[in-house]
């Protein structure tokens, strides 16, 4: 038994330990060292987890059990302990999240010099990291709710971290009320499923589920709450506020936290309900959410004049691509022919878009953060001509903007191409909306580039200098990931994305991993 069987537990406990220890670390150097160490350790663990899932298939881990795979003690029909379950899709999300957290954390270190209680920031950050990873590795519905709430509470704190700016408090307040309410809706859904099936384990519910009225009510509650948490239009209103007002390094990380709720939505739709839910209503709801998010997000982004708020609207729009891609996969779930015709391609596109979006949207938020660090504002009307003063930031912004706009040969193009071509089969309208969105995305980033970096230097911007080294390192982590994904899309598709898509579709193997090991 290698120590690696404990990976699903370790990946939660290492950042959790980091969060708790860092409350006591008041010395800045020690705190920064500890923060970097924990983030790097989490990234390494995430990589090992992903590799192990690739080698051994779906991993399970019984918290506190007599053995790590002892899921069904003494002939019980249901697993009774909290079980972690990581399939390839979960591992993919964990890897994406850990890389993004590493970059965001490295970037944030220099910002902590400006505050007197940086250890609280580090603690909240690592707590949010734990909760996000927990959402992606857990196999238990109530545990999912708990991690959802931990993630929410940590992000309320992080969003309101600049507590002397009124807007940050306002954004955090709105997000708190909405998110608390939505989490309670989720809890009611969990309660309904528990009342019907007497278990909270996702695989056990999925094995026994027969979709009746109560299950449909629970599904409505799940979908509505997860759609709000991932920021689908028309439930997206909190997102520009929150992302726009959070401290500079944080929105990069909040992007992947939002994607964790997206993961929850797909896990529920594919692995719990799956083929037991007849009809294509659910898939079309997700696709329509995707369409609305794509279009309205980008249209609102074009008219924004505050860089982080503009990028937050783009985040909504990119979420739309993922919703549409994977929603089309859900549409094709019940017929193998449709799945091979367009569904699997769409899912590949949607899942590839998740990692792409985490990387380039994170990088964009980080460049906006470094604009803020250097100039003290992200208002595009006040910025101008910064390309001479901040060459690295400008270069990385250009790479990220090209990638998000889907210009070939960057990675955004590949995932968007997959989505265009597969959605065209279902209905040409879907592909048209996706393309128009892409064009408007390019337009709005041309605007940011033009007004932020090009043109003559403004008077008060002539003495601006490039940001410190750790911030550049943080940004270049994501930039290198973008370039790597752009240069080797084939490798990424066949090693990262395809196993994830296959595991997400394969409900039987998800159930088998927990319920199949039986008596031992």
């Amino acid at each position, binding site marked *: 038994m290698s120590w690696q069987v*404990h990976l699903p*537990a370790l990946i939660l406990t290492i950042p959790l330990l980091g969060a*708790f220890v860092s*409350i006591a670390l008041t010395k800045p150097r020690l705190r920064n060292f500890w923060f970097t160490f924990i983030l790097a350790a989490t990234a390494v663990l995430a990589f090992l987890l992903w590799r192990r899932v690739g080698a051994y298939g779906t991993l399970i881990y019984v*918290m*506190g059990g007599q053995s*790590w795979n002892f899921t069904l003690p003494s002939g019980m029909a249901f697993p009774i302990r909290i079980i972690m379950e990581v399939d390839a899709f979960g591992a993919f999300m964990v890897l994406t999240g850990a890389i993004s957290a590493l970059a965001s954390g490295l970037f944030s270190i220099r910002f902590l010099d400006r505050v007197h209680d940086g250890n609280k920031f580090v603690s909240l950050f690592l707590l949010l990291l734990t909760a996000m990873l927990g959402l992606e590795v857990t196999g238990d519905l109530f545990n999912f709710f708990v991690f959802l709430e931990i993630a929410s509470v940590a992000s309320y704190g992080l969003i309101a971290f600049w507590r002397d700016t009124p807007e940050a408090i306002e954004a955090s307040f709105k997000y708190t009320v909405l998110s608390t309410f939505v989490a309670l809706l989720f809890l009611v859904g969990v309660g309904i499923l528990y009342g019907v099936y007497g278990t909270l384990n996702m695989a056990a519910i999925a094995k026994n589920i027969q979709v009746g009225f109560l299950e449909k009510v629970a599904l409505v509650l799940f979908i509505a709450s997860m759609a709000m948490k991932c920021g689908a239009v028309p439930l997206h209103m909190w997102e520009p506020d929150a992302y726009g007002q959070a401290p500079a390094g944080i929105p990069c990380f909040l992007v992947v936290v939002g994607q964790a709720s997206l993961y929850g939505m797909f896990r529920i739709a594919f692995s719990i309900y799956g083929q037991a839910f007849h009809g294509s209503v659910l898939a079309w709801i997700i696709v329509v959410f995707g369409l609305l998010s794509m279009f309205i997000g980008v249209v609102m982004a074009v008219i924004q004049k505050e860089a982080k708020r503009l990028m937050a609207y783009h985040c909504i729009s990119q979420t739309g691509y993922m919703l549409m891609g994977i929603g089309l996969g859900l549409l094709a779930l019940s017929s193998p022919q449709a799945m091979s015709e367009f569904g699997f391609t769409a899912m590949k596109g949607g899942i590839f878009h998740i990692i792409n979006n985490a990387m380039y949207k994170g990088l964009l938020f980080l460049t906006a953060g470094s604009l803020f660090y250097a100039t003290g504002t992200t208002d595009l009307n006040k910025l101008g001509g910064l390309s001479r003063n901040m060459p690295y930031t400008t270069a990385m912004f250009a790479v990220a903007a090209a990638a998000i706009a889907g210009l070939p040969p960057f990675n955004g193009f590949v995932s968007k191409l997959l989505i265009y071509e597969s959605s065209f089969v279902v209905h040409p309208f879907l592909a048209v909306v996706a393309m128009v969105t892409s064009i408007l995305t390019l337009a709005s980033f041309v605007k940011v580039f033009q007004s932020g970096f090009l043109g003559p230097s403004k008077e008060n911007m002539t003495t601006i200098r490039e940001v410190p080294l750790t911030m550049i390192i943080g940004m270049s982590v994501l930039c290198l990931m973008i370039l790597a994904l752009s240069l080797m899309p084939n490798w990424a598709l066949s090693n990262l994305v395809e196993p994830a898509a296959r595991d997400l579709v394969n409900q039987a193997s998800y159930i088998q991993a927990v319920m199949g090991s039986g008596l031992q």
Partner: protein
Amino acid sequence: MDMKPMSIVVRTICNIFAWFVVVFGAYVIIHGHLSPGGGFQGGAIVATFVALLLVAHGGKRFMEWLRSDILTVFECVGLIAFICIGFLGLRTTYLYNFLALKGGLFGSPVPLGPNAGVLNSAGTIAFANMAVGIEVVGGLSTIIVFMFLGMRHVIESNKGVKKNDR
């Protein structure tokens, strides 16, 4: 809420009875594995001790009594202890109850069916309850103290917090 202490009657009653709150909270924490209650509930009861002191003796004297970092220490120790209890079981699985039914500390078996309760049972769960209890004492007291400070701030001065954030 005020900075001034309340009347002598309230203070005397507080001085006499506030300690029983702590004892009762400790009882709830320690019997967490036997009775409804446990770490959080007991910790919340102990944290009312802080609230009582704050109300009865007023913020000024309370803040003189309070060592500023003691609550952080409580939080930290409780949380790290909880995590470490989990790590100690890592030979089998994380959070494995390696003390139960082994004899010794918290290792006695429990008879099946209704019983009077065996305090010396439940293994690591008892320790986890205590860790949670310590953490909740620290956490809830921090919430009470900080909300008191913040409220005072809102009422007394409208100058805003010191501009040290950016």
